[in-house]
């Protein structure tokens, strides 16, 4: 869906993550980029260079906020101080929608700083959906939740991951940030067909898509965001946009970050799949 309630009825193209090693290049060369995704937590501060750079980026580019620490699945209620800082940033960036992960990462105020997987239970879905609603009501913007890469499954799970994702977003009435690389990584780690996942999510709720690279180890795959996107992930992307239509797409590259051009060119490969889809449809 190019524009839907979950991405603020916007029609964004292919963007990349705003990363520190690219600051100088972007500010000096002012490359044409459809939009940038920022990690909210890097700018939930009171001053200094990060905010100074962000303001210059905002003068020229569209920015969408992506969070890594809201932990919708954590047991404690949303932290008010965290929410206030996030809302201050939302007002600054005018992000049309906001994303964070469908995961947990803290208990009783102790933080793991990791995106820990949820047990796929109805209890967990209800709890998580309630928190998403609370956060959305406070921030007053659409929210989309991202499926994470995972390395463990729980005995307690009562459904598949995509059924759980669907249950949560339906209960919360929120959007999905569909990470096709994470689907691929989890499918290899948990022996399921990634196409079942892509075909199983409610396409009308997909606000945005993530693509990325990963690292392969002997017995599992780790979501490292330090490589180009591999062909099987592009195939999943192709199937995803076949179902959703042209959707705001973002390449994540967070480690061993190459030049701006290399990252941007990798992201722009997504346009070819959009074009192919237009031809075949």
């Amino acid at each position, binding site marked *: 869906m190019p524009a839907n309630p979950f991405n603020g009825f916007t029609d964004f193209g292919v963007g990349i993550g705003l990363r520190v090693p690219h600051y100088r290049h972007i500010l000096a060369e002012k490359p044409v980029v459809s939009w940038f995704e920022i990690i909210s*937590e890097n700018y*939930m*501060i*009171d*001053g*200094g*260079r*990060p*905010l*100074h750079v962000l303001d210059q980026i905002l003068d020229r580019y569209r920015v969408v906020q992506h969070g890594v*620490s809201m932990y919708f*699945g*954590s*047991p404690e209620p949303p*932290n008010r101080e*965290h929410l206030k800082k996030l809302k201050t940033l939302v007002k600054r960036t005018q992000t049309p929608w906001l994303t964070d992960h469908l995961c*947990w990462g*803290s*208990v009783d*105020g*102790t*933080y*793991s*700083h*990791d995106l*820990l997987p949820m*047990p796929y*239970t109805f*209890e*967990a879905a209800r*709890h998580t959906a309630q928190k998403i609603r609370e956060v959305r009501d406070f921030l007053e913007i659409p929210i989309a939740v991202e499926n994470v890469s995972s*390395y*463990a*499954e*729980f*005995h*307690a799970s009562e459904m598949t991951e995509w059924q759980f994702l669907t249950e949560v977003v339906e209960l919360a009435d929120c959007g999905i940030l569909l990470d096709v690389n994470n689907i691929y990584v989890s499918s290899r*780690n*948990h*022996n399921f067909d990634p196409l079942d996942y892509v075909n199983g999510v409610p396409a009308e709720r997909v606000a945005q898509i993530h693509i990325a690279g990963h690292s392969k180890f002997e*017995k*599992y795959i*780790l979501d490292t965001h330090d490589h180009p996107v591999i062909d099987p992930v592009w195939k999943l992307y192709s199937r995803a946009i076949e179902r959703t239509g042209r959707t705001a797409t973002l390449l994540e590259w967070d480690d061993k970050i190459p030049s701006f051009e290399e990252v941007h060119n990798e992201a722009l490969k997504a346009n070819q799949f959009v074009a192919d889809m237009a031809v075949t449809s």
Partner: protein
Amino acid sequence: MNLLEIQHRMLDAVMQPLTDDEQMRPHARDGKSMHDVAAEFIKPNDRLSSFERLEIYNRQYWFRVLASLDEDFRGLRAIIGPRRFEALCKAYLIECPSESFTLRNLGSRLEWWLRSHPEHLQPRAGLALDMVRLEWAEIEAFDGAAEPVLVPGDVLASDPDPRFRLQPYVQLLSVHYAVDDLLVAIRKDDSDSEMASNAVSERGKRTHLRKVARQKPQAIFLVVHRVDDSIYFKRIEPEAFKFLKALREGKSLSVAVMQAFEGRDIQENKLLTTVQGWFENWSSLGWFCAPNSTDQDFISASGRQS
């Protein structure tokens, strides 16, 4: 097992320290086998046992938090050495795990914790503690708020004894060792090492360290501040430091002057010239800011306090 029970068990396991060869420990804190603990809530697959799947998260946790402290406290690491630094960080994180949504605050309690664990810093405890304080001040100065700059002359024209606010990002630090010079030298060695060998860089660090550690402890007064988004360390005189501390505590100009020169026999015109010089210099650096809209009265010492 319900959601909360799973989360408690998993977080407990994930945050348990790794073995020396970076594996998950075979036993939980209560002595139970970690294989049994993991198997209770995590499914195995055809390649990995429940233990091995949980271990991935255990290792990722420690790699992430240790890398964060390593990045923030390079100076401390150089003083006590990489091995002892890692041991210190592990001990600190076991007692003070993160209580913030952001890794930026991971080292916020390090100075406090080290004061009750000086054994991690011997034999250079004083120097190491000064370095920790400087590195934390730098973090605070890097992203502290910068408010609209105030011109002191404008205020003095309307109030003979005003109160001034220092920019929130300005950090005042009193230390006993030249950790400012040492940190700059360590950073330079680190950046040179990108071009030279690690051995050359480590040799350079040791030389700088020995030089600073050999110096007799002396009072050094520092302002850690920001110009054009870059951090600077500025040494100031003891009187200037006392003066700025008094202003930060909300004292009026006259009280700050009195505290700064307490016990000093100084001629009034000399005192006036000194204070004027400070204001000129610090104003040019933008260290003074306008009062908050909620405390407009704060600036006037003679008026009603809000």
